[in-house]
């Protein structure tokens, strides 16, 4: 202050935020690109830090897999008890997993809207603008991401408040969750499809193909088969034949963004070695005990999933459910010497995708060596003897692709849509349109590609009697439907689709309750699961209802 008794210079009270930006400082072409990057930042379901972003994982392992018949929460019964409620289909509005899912994806939406608002502001200015072409692309990318975030929320919660860039925060507050958001999602994907090139400079960005595939998926969820099919056909045509693409490249951190990848959450280790932008959503799936990646022991495949990989002598899945007869249990329930001396039974006939999806005792796990069984598992008596494969990285990549000291946080990308998904979605439509031959062709391509997988070997001999053969024919529409759905389970197991597929097929109740009957006989924690119609979606988080001042209505 310059004077003793008078007023101070006005600038004495004018301070600047520390380490933060004001809107003036980002009102530029670079600012728009930065905001768009920020909008992509939520594709991994995480704002910052590593812990606590499980239900919002792009893999949707919790709602999509634990919530279905493919996986158990794992760890032990007392760990993350609110996840037990997801597995047991008894989720209350105060379950934190719903809140986490909701607010991460709405943050993604807010970032898209903020990007679109800033874009408009910058483009309306005189200088420091984007080229018109790039401005269009930015708009299309932001709208693609917004549609993606809304779609993930739509299938989880069903009834959503729809907020776009025209609404200021105080207006957004008042939006109800009564309308249907699918038309808006479609509009955004259409805009992206119409304004994005087939190839973008960065593989992680949305492009035309991704928009086509995603729009098709949104149509499929609404059973708009005629709208969806041409899109899937275009996507399939735009990519190499799937039989030429190795199955396990989809889950190999050094082969990411290959030709099968259509839209994937991009993950990387930060330059300082931290993991905020890595695959934090799946980190609890790091194994327990003496495993080279030691964490928490969540996300364990079910007996039901493992046995569904059993094949008939003809190399086909046991569509009639007979895979549950005399099930394979690994070393579960053995004691004493029988347990200690357990050897894997190499004569069992399995689809080779099993050992690229599930880790089981006596079989090599990735390049880590033989999976030792319980030594990698927190509480096998609670959630079984199996571990998952697709979310993990090779030991050889651990040095560079994981967070040091926390190697359960990896840089592995997570597929949101990959080509096999599109093949099988197209096959579904052909079945519904009763074009069984076309469906058969697509399913058999997926199976033919599976047949290319080298089986795991122990001591030079295959760990199982691996066998996967094409279907000779689809004998009826029902059989075809069953086969396509079964194939979808096998091919995309543990990738976050299962629960949402069961719900849109309308078979969630019967599938999950029947599964509980089988699985609960082996693992008592999963007996007597009941599934109500309302369990097809999750309740709107109570806290969001409380904060919405009456705009949001509970769906449960």
């Amino acid at each position, binding site marked *: *202050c310059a004077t*003793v008794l008078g007023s*101070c210079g006005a600038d004495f*009270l004018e*301070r600047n*935020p*520390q380490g*933060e*930006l*004001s*809107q003036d400082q980002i009102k530029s072409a670079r600012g728009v690109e*930065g*905001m768009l*990057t*920020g909008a*992509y930042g939520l594709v991994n379901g995480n704002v*910052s830090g590593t812990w606590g972003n499980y239900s919002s994982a792009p893999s949707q392992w919790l709602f999509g897999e634990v919530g279905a018949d493919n996986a158990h929460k794992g760890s*032990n019964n*007392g*760990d993350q*008890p*609110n996840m*037990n409620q997801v597995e047991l289909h*008894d989720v209350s*509005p*105060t379950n934190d997993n719903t809140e986490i899912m*909701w607010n991460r994806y*709405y*943050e993604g*939406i*807010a*970032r898209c809207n903020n990007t679109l608002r800033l874009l408009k502001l910058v483009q309306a200015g005189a200088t420091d603008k984007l080229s018109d072409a790039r401005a269009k692309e930015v708009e299309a990318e932001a709208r693609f991401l917004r549609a993606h975030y809304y779609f993930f929320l739509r299938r989880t919660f069903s009834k*959503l*408040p729809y907020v776009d860039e025209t609404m200021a*925060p105080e207006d*957004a507050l008042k*939006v109800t969750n009564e309308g249907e958001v699918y038309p808006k999602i479609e509009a955004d994907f259409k805009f992206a499809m119409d304004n994005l090139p087939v190839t973008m400079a960065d*593989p*992680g960005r949305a492009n035309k193909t991704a928009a086509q595939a995603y729009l098709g998926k949104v149509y499929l969820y609404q059973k708009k088969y005629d709208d969806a099919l041409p899109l899937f056909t275009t996507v399939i045509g735009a990519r190499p034949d799937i039989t030429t693409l190795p199955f396990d490249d989809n889950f190999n951190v050094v082969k*990411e*963004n290959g030709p099968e990848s259509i839209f994937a959450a991009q*993950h*990387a280790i*930060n*330059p*300082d070695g*931290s993991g*905020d*932008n890595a695959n934090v959503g799946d980190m609890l799936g790091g194994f327990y005990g*003496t495993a080279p990646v030691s964490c*928490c022991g969540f996300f364990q495949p079910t007996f039901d999933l493992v046995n569904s990989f059993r094949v008939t002598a003809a190399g086909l899945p046991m569509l009639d459910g007979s895979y549950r007869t005399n099930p394979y249990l690994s070393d579960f329930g053995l004691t004493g010497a029988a347990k200690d001396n357990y050897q894997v039974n190499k004569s069992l006939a399995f689809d080779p995708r099993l050992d690229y999806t599930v880790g089981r005792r006596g079989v090599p796990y990735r390049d880590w060596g033989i999976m030792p069984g319980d030594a990698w598992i927190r509480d*096998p*008596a609670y959630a079984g003897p199996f571990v998952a494969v697709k979310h993990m990285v090779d030991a050889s990549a651990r040095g560079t692709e994981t*967070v040091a*000291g926390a190697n359960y946080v990896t840089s592995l*990308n997570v597929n949101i849509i990959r080509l096999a998904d599109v093949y099988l979605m197209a096959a579904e439509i052909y079945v519904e349109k009763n074009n069984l031959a076309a469906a058969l062709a697509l399913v058999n391509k997926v199976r033919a590609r599976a047949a290319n997988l080298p089986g795991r070997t122990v001591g030079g001999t295959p760990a199982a009697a691996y066998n996967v053969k094409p279907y000779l024919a689809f004998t009826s529409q029902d059989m075809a439907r069953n086969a396509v759905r079964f194939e979808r389970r096998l091919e995309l197991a543990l990738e976050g689709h299962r629960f949402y597929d069961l719900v849109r097929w309308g078979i969630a109740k019967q599938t999950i309750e029947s599964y509980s009957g089988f699985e609960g006989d082996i693992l008592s924690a999963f*007996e007597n699961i009941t599934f109500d119609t309302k369990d097809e979606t999750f309740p709107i988080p109570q806290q*969001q209802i*409380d*904060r919405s001042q009456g705009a949001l209505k509970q769906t449960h």
Partner: protein
Amino acid sequence: GPLSVHASIASGLYFQQVQTVKGKVISEQDKQPVPGAAVQIKGTSKGTVTNENGEFTIQANTGDILMISSIGFTAQEIAVAAGKSYDVTLAFSNTSLDEVVVTGYSAQRVKDLTGAVAVVNVNQMKQQPVASPVESLQGKATGVQIISDGAPGATPQIRIRGFSTINNNDPLFVIDGVPYEGKLSWLDQNDIETMQVLKDASSASIYGARANNGVVIITTRQGVKGPPKINLSSYFGTQVPNKNAFPKMMNPQQYAEYVYEAFRNSGQTPGQEGTTGNNYGTGATPTLPEYLVAGKVTGQKVTAADADPSRYNYSRASETFYQITKANKQGTNWFDEISQTAPIRNVQLGVNGGGDNATYAIGAGYLGQKGTIRHTGYNRYNGRANTRFSAFNNHFRFGENMQYSYEEFVGVGVNPNVSGDYQGEGSALGFAYRIPVIIPVYDIMGNFAGSRGDKLGNAQNPLALLYRAKDNVQKRNFFFGNVFGEVDLVKGLVAKTSFGLRYENYSGISLTYPNLEFSEGSAANGMSENQGFNTEWTWTNTLTYKWEVANVHSLTVLAGTEAFRSRNRFLSAGRNDYFLLGQTDYYYLPAGASNINNTSSGGVGSLFSIFGRADYSFRDRYLVSLTVRRDGSSNFSKNSRYGTFPAGSIAWRLSEEDFLKGNKFITDLKLRAGYGITGNQRIPAFQYIDRYESLIANAFYPFNGKSVTGGVWQKAYKNENVKWEELKSFNIGLDFTLLDGEFDGAIDWYSRKTTDMLYPVPMPAASIGMGGAPFVNIGDMKNTGIELGLGYHYGQRENKPFKLDVNVNISRNVNQVVSLAPSVKEQVYGTFRSLQTTILRPGEPFGSFYGYKWDGVYTSADDLAKSPKYSGARVGGPKYIDVTGDGQITPADRTIIGNPHPDFLYSFGINAKYKSWDLAMFFNGSQGNDLYEATRYFTDFSTFDGTASVRMLDRWSPSNPNSRTHTPNRKASDYELASSGYYVQDGSYFRMKNLQIGYNFKVDNWFKGNMRTLRAYVGASNLFTLTKYTGLDPEVSQTNSTFSALGVDFGVYPVSRQFLIGFSAGF
């Protein structure tokens, strides 16, 4: 009185004659000279003061009346007679009415105060051995609530007249005229000379925008003219944890049976690997194992070969780690294990003195306190130098007050910046509530045992946690002080300038060790360190004009400006993977090989204020005080940057009126009333603008799956209109002194209403994603209260061999959240796992506990069928009251289940003296407040593998049908695990806070008469506590989140008993 008037007239007529009057003033009690006593000729402005020998010389007329007064003494009048020398003996005063205390930018006599100002008896305060002076303020002033905290060096929670806001409720401290916000552990309470608490707006509003929560004015010890006086004092004490209050857990056998029942109640079969696991065998009833773990084998599966000690390897690497741990079948008392009897010691040395133109008070001290929780502690070294000079015939006065302190906070949980911060399930105390008692402290080789094993939960060994943090030392250098100058411009007009500075830097290290004994342990080792500083300067300029017509008018007018600026910056970095462990000399960042991280942050702020004040008194009878302050804050946008805070108060000293004058019973009686407005601007900065951030963690994206690209996100959303929160307060009070000071006291009634409360109304994610919602001015809060302080003083004035002071304080405050935003019906907060403990709801007190009303348990299938129930309700499970009456239990049945605010606070102190002996006792209590014992989540509910309270032994069963305690269940519905009345208890307590017995030696002949005083004493603190509360300690600090959750106990650091011996000596 009339007689002296008469004498004066008479003398004027007959004997008027100017002469030189000489005299000496001595103290009645110790017969020592009284320097600095005022000698004034009554009815004139002529006067002088006594010199250091207590002597005075004055020109007076025969028959004049001399008034001789000095602070702490009863004033005396003598009539001047011809040719006499006077020996005046002043008696100690029973009243503090003439004491001059510092209030807002000025000093006033206590009897002239018009606002609600509590003058703290600093001497009583100092009897308590504490690190922070705030703690010993407990019970010393009405309307001030202190919640102590047992952690060494911790900051107690202080609330003046309740909670004025849902935001920060900490008061403003003003130390030697310099405002300060923050914790006060750096200030040695022995350096405090006076402490005043400005409670109402009429007294506090001169501090405007920072005064909403009350102002605590502290002046530090100043020099007194005279030869150097040296004071040395010291005490040594021991602190004993209150083991009787430790929570009692089931023994391992009881716990095993409890777990068996939990599985049975959930329809599962215990005694299997999938349920109760390896520890308790496979039978229908549990048997305890010999071993918990040997390598990878657990529980009863451990064979002799597994447990062969030669296989033992307590290695740093998980691959080779092989631990062998025996079960502790008796059970480990973890609270015993982590607590200890701990020493506290203090020494201080001070000297003060000075001459006519310079005085000084300098001193230094040390306080060392070990925690009663092991491996925690606090050390403080402090020095102070206060000097005063005068020049130009005393027309120019200047000086400085400076304090430097160095503090060390050792171990975990001793350096919370805000009271209660260290509480939580991850603290050592939190783990003591969670770790199974079957786990021993150490394994067979004496290394730490832990929860690695089968179904031993995921608590850490709390002693291991404490031990491994023993080298985590946070160090703080703190400088606080000011320089000032004061000049008499013309008669009555004084200009003053003061420049105050706070400079603080701090640094600390934090180590992590491999903790492979822990079920979620890791082989990682690491060290992180942090450094930072806070700088604040305050430049205050005032002009004061005093105008007086003796005994008729007295007017003081003050105008001033104040500028304040703050800046802080913080830097931290860490790495993992050090070659050596536990070697503090080795721990530097480059020696770490992985997990390289570093960060920094900072803040700035400024305030500019102008203020004025006028105090007028007419014939000491009618008093008026007016203040106004206009504050500008960098926290607000240009449009709403300034706020104006006026206040006024009046007082009427009835005792000066003719109808009471001379009344033997009433010595002084004053009625006060005041009204004023204060403000609050203490919110995070820059709420008025949208703020964006480009951080790797928050907004970057790896477009190629390999390396990240920079991005931006909006981290905070603006409210351009955010402005001052205001508090309007009305106070009416009565001060009285009776029977010449034998009784005194004050009654105050107040009403305080906060409007435009700054409230970060949480917005739904659909509106702002996960960005920060801005503070908005919305909502009202109300506090009304009554305060009563009473004192009885016996024997002081007459200097009887037996002297007694009794002080009683009672205060009641009723808090109510009047309204929130029109759109916000209520807000539930205090989230802890599945609990949400607290609610903000209009019409209810701030921090009300929220949840289901406990109605015992469902006692039969019939009861279950007939009663309202929730999804997953079961026989033996918690039964709640159907508040909505809709026949079922849903979240809508959650309701208010407790009030954390006390009905009233009370305290009383007794100080007695008999000849050379003195005795002090101090008690305080809180009545009618509820506490939320959140630790019951772990000890009384069976979700976790862990431990269980002995309370659960009395659980309901068909053979214990009257129990209202639920049974365990491993598949509990989340309704069972929700917040409920089961957690809420009466938290009232009555505590003997302090007891001290001292002896004053007669030292006249010691050290050749060079020793002035010597007092030795023994004392005890927290000797006993009466409470029904079942947690560790009924003093539960708030926990901090967006809003504070009051009285929620996650495991507080309990206060301990202290036993002391000490002395103070003067030379």
